[in-house]
């Protein structure tokens, strides 16, 4: 599904990631962990084409990400749902329209999707906030809205960058539960987090693998967590 082959990435002078080997199988559930600044966000961005590797090859759905033009990159993003660390929305549109935004911009008719949209809002627990504007949402509500937006096009892969970064424990459990449910529906899930307790909690529900970035490389962490 997503393959990184000998990938390196450097910002200006220093190398942030070097010779990364990574492979995500369809339907797998991965955590990506490591200290702050280790390159978790960078690695995720390489996976959905927001950044290009300095060397090595990133393949998503068997396509070389570097070879994609701007329109192909846009189409790739419709197949990979991303929950960004700083979930950004269109602040002038209500939550429900923001969640439907990927549908709108891909030119699909959203008029027939009302029921699905309501169902999705119920699933993330935002049914009552449907008409609120994004700035009126709490941190947890924003994260859930971002998750709903990332899955609206039914992507095959869901990438979440610190989805529980600024929410309380209860809310992070709820978000995790949603991601586990998506994985049970057959989606490939990759979550970057530095929250080890979240990873431990997940292991009770799903067979998750943990990748750790250390010394600029990605390693599969053992059962020690």
């Amino acid at each position, binding site marked *: 599904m997503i393959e990184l082959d000998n990938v390196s990435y450097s910002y200006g002078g220093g190398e942030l990631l070097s010779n990364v080997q990574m492979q995500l199988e369809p339907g797998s559930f991965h955590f990506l962990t490591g200290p702050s600044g280790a390159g978790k966000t960078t690695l995720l961005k390489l996976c959905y*084409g*927001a*950044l290009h590797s300095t060397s090595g090859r990133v393949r998503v759905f068997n396509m070389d990400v570097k070879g994609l033009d*701007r*329109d192909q990159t*846009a*189409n*790739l*993003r*419709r197949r990979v749902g*991303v929950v*960004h660390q700083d979930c*950004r*929305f*269109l*602040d*002038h*549109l209500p939550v429900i*329209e923001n969640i439907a*935004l*990927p549908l*709108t*911009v*891909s*030119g699909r008719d*959203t008029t027939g999707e009302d029921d699905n949209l309501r169902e999705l809002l119920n699933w993330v627990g935002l049914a009552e906030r449907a008409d609120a504007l994004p700035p009126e949402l709490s941190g947890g509500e924003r994260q859930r809205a971002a998750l709903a*937006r990332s899955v609206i*096009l039914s992507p095959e892969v869901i990438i979440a960058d610190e989805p529980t970064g600024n929410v309380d424990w209860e809310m992070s459990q709820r978000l995790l539960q949603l991601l586990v449910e998506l994985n049970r529906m057959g989606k490939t899930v990759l979550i970057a987090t530095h929250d080890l307790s979240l990873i431990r909690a997940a292991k009770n529900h799903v067979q998750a693998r943990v990748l750790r970035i250390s010394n600029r490389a990605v390693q599969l962490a053992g059962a020690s967590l």
Partner: protein
Amino acid sequence: MSEGRIRKLFTGDAQADRVVPPSGFTAQLTLFVSGAMAFLTVFALALSLASGRLADRWASELARAATLRISAPADQRAAQTEAALTILNQTPGVASARALSVEEQAALLSPWFGTDAGLEALPVPQLIEVQADSTGYDARGLQLRLTAEVPGAVLDDHARWREPLVEAAQSLRLLGIVSILLIGGATAAMITLAANAALAANRQVIEVLRLVGALDSYIAHAFVRRFTLRALTGAASGVALGMIGVWLMPAASDEGGFLTGLGFQSWRWLLPLAIPLLAALVAFIATTRAARKRLEELS
């Protein structure tokens, strides 16, 4: 651009339009600028059309008419006039030749001498009005023949008057055309600036749209549509006001000279109607280019 895209530009996609927040004040500015520019274009167009018309009219009217002046002692004047008229009537290309009567000459001179000056007492030369037919005559040959047979005759074919007048009218027309081009360029520049400002102000919106998988064309379209429609409506109202202004100007009259008759004539009233379409085209191209450039800076 396909027909479908043009149609989409005008009918629009309500949802696509909503993804970019409404811009309020800058929208009014774009409307105002394109309106003002269209208003000015109407006048520049009227000016260049009228001066073109003037140049043509002066050129043809003055070219067809000539004046023969006979300055001879009083006792020979009638004979020389007679001889000159005979020569003129024999010259191919001369449609008519007519000696002006005393009253007519007095009327011509009245602005300078008043009506009761008693022109009979003055040695006023006899004037003969010569009208050429459409083929024209050989002015130089005629002059030579007249010099030989009518010593007091001087042929004035108005070239001395005509050339600077026609030249002036032609440069006025050129000035009008240059003004229209400059106005078009200035409109393009201002819409580019406005579009760039709008794109910069909505940078975050554009980034969010890119992240959720919007194509560049989709994002650009939202901006291009707005600016094109604003330029179109702004220019349409500017043209309407400009045309009313031109229509209210006094009609051509002899008293007003070349300052009147600046309006449009017959089918040329349709020409200003092209201005809003051209303004929309200019806005379309300017915004498309600005949007493409901005989008390429984003991942």
